């Protein structure tokens, strides 16, 4: 039984610098393809997971992508408001389990402060808090898993993107008059979305701090009474949550609707899409469009990766041919000593496929690591959790490269196979 492995291993050891360079070249080319593919899937998975709680989004007519980015991914953007009466009407509309307004614009130490309802924060009881409880008054807040605050910590949100100390004196007085100090009362579990960095407060608090009505007649009455009597308004005594009074409800940037059934979801989407003052969409619709763009980019990168792999395999073959040209006499000696052609064939083929396989395996690991690092960076920057995993696609890609490498390795092997002993020894 022929066994060229000792010779192959010795040769790899003897030419390790060149072999390492070849392995690294192959690994980098493979890693590029694997990282692009794994990262794209991670983006899809992470993007979908982040959009899960948002069954149906309703906003003012305009860019659905912008609305999606503002609500699901909490990217700051100027969004037109929907008339508050629409939110109020939803509370009586059939097919709606709940409709939660989302109000953005404030922040605290870089964490976005989002106004909504306790029902949406807990997904109507489907989501359990890891600490504390839901907010029950205008001065309470629930924080995301990554917000570096503790229960009972107190905070004052910045008004919009402007710090209070940057305002002029008149504005300063007015804002301070409306400023609410929140107490952290609960923490959400990790969601793997930018909402992990959000501070959630009653939407009425956001309305109030922006000088708007709070949606409830009794709140307005209390406010007027306090003002007349010269008392300081007790924020915690104000009513929060639906239902709101139509004449006191301000506009909102977005509304999340939890439909009762799938059929209701489509009926509601069509209804609010046809409505003059609104647009409505399932986040998955917009994500699919974004993924299509992402797919184009992935195709471009994947094509570049394949081209690189082809070039590297070509370079690898040239290197093997060059090495064989330098070692023709050595091959001749092996034949003279009695090594068969099949021994030489097996030795050269094994050498080539070992290098290709090691390079591809290292590339798979490098690609996975690169995707992990990219995901970690995206996660730190956006709060979006991108779960990186190697799937069948990546393994097939690497298997295909190895398979092609195995076939290409036949070329130098057959070339050496065809030479006579005498011609090899004369080299």
């Amino acid at each position, binding site marked *: 039984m022929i*066994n060229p492995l000792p010779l192959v291993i*010795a040769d790899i050891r003897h030419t390790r610098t060149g072999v390492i360079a070849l392995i690294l070249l192959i690994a980098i080319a493979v890693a590029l393809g694997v990282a692009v593919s794994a990262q794209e899937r991670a983006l899809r998975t992470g993007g979908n997971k982040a959009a899960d709680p948002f069954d149906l989004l309703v906003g003012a007519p305009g860019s659905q992508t912008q609305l999606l980015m503002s609500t699901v991914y909490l990217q700051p953007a100027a969004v037109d408001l929907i008339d508050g009466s629409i939110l109020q009407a939803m509370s009586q509309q059939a097919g709606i389990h709940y409709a939660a307004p989302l109000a953005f614009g404030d922040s605290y130490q870089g964490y976005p402060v989002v106004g909504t309802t306790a029902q949406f924060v807990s997904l109507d009881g489907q989501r359990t808090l890891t600490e504390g409880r839901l907010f029950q008054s205008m001065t309470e807040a629930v924080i995301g898993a990554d917000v570096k605050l503790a229960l009972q910590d107190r905070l004052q949100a910045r008004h919009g993107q402007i710090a209070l100390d940057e305002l002029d004196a008149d504005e300063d007085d007015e804002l301070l008059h409306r400023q609410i100090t929140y107490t952290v009362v609960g923490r959400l579990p990790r969601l793997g979305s930018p909402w992990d960095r959000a501070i959630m407060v009653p939407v009425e608090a956001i309305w109030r701090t922006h000088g708007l009505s709070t949606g409830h007649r009794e709140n307005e009455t209390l406010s007027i009474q306090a003002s007349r009597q010269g008392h300081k308004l007790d924020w915690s005594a104000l009513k929060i949550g639906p239902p709101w009074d139509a004449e006191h409800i301000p506009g909102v940037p977005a509304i999340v609707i939890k439909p009762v059934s799938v059929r209701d979801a489509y009926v509601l989407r069509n209804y609010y899409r046809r409505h003059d003052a609104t647009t409505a969409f399932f986040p998955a619709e917009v994500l699919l469009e974004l993924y299509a763009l992402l797919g184009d980019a992935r195709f471009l990168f994947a094509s570049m990766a394949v081209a690189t792999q082809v070039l590297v395999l070509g370079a690898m073959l040239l290197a093997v041919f060059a090495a064989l040209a330098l070692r023709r006499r050595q091959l001749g000696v092996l034949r*003279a*000593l*009695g090594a*068969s052609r099949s021994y030489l064939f097996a030795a050269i083929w094994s050498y080539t496929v070992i290098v290709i396989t090691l390079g591809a395996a290292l590339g798979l690991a490098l690609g996975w690591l690169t995707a992990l690092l990219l995901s970690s960076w995206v996660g730190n920057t956006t709060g979006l959790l991108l779960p990186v995993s190697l799937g069948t696609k990546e393994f097939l890609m690497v298997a295909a490269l190895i398979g092609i490498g195995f076939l290409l390795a036949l070329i130098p092997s057959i070339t050496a196979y065809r030479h*006579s*002993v005498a011609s090899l020894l004369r080299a």
Partner: protein
Amino acid sequence: MLKPLACTATDIRLSYALTPGDQSTYYTVLDISRFTATAGASIGITGPSGAGKTSLIHVLTGIESADTATIRWGDINITELGESARDAWRRDHVGLVFQDFYLFPGLSVLQNVTLTATFGGADSDLKTRAYELLDRVGVNPNRHTIDTLSRGECQRVAIARALLKTPPLIVADEPTASLDAASSCTVIDLLLEARDQATLLTVSHDPALLERMDTVHILHNGCLSTARTTTA
């Protein structure tokens, strides 16, 4: 263990084209009507450089195909064998020693000696034999690299490699050409020790080696003439 091989070779003609690919003009390298070797004999072939000595042993061992030749080693006419069969015949019957040793860098001393065992064919415990041979040629079998061996040590390792399978024919091409006198002497002793079990065919310019051969042939202009024959 195979018995030493006797050789009968006739009508050896080998020529090369003066211009590669052009068969119309060629020069004759070998033109030998008859060459014989008795089993267990030691035969030296000498002659000026370029006379065709290496070509002759290549033809005699089936490494190179002559234009015409009938070469019989023992019962086998190797000129009737295809190239693959000749490879297998060499693997099982011939121990080759080269002037430049041709040890394989990256392999340890022991692996170099046992290299031919990886070609297939043999089943016996050649590792034990390799240890014995290296002990006999005086090279430490545990050296992990051949890079630090002297030329004399390299040639002794090459001889151990040639003797590994106890071949019935040992062919040595200028085995002492690049060695100092002391190393040459050791190498000659080792080759002659093996003669008990093998026919020995050497190409050499070294008088010390040729002197100890049973028969010495001179190759000149492709033709062979017998310079000396010693009858034991």
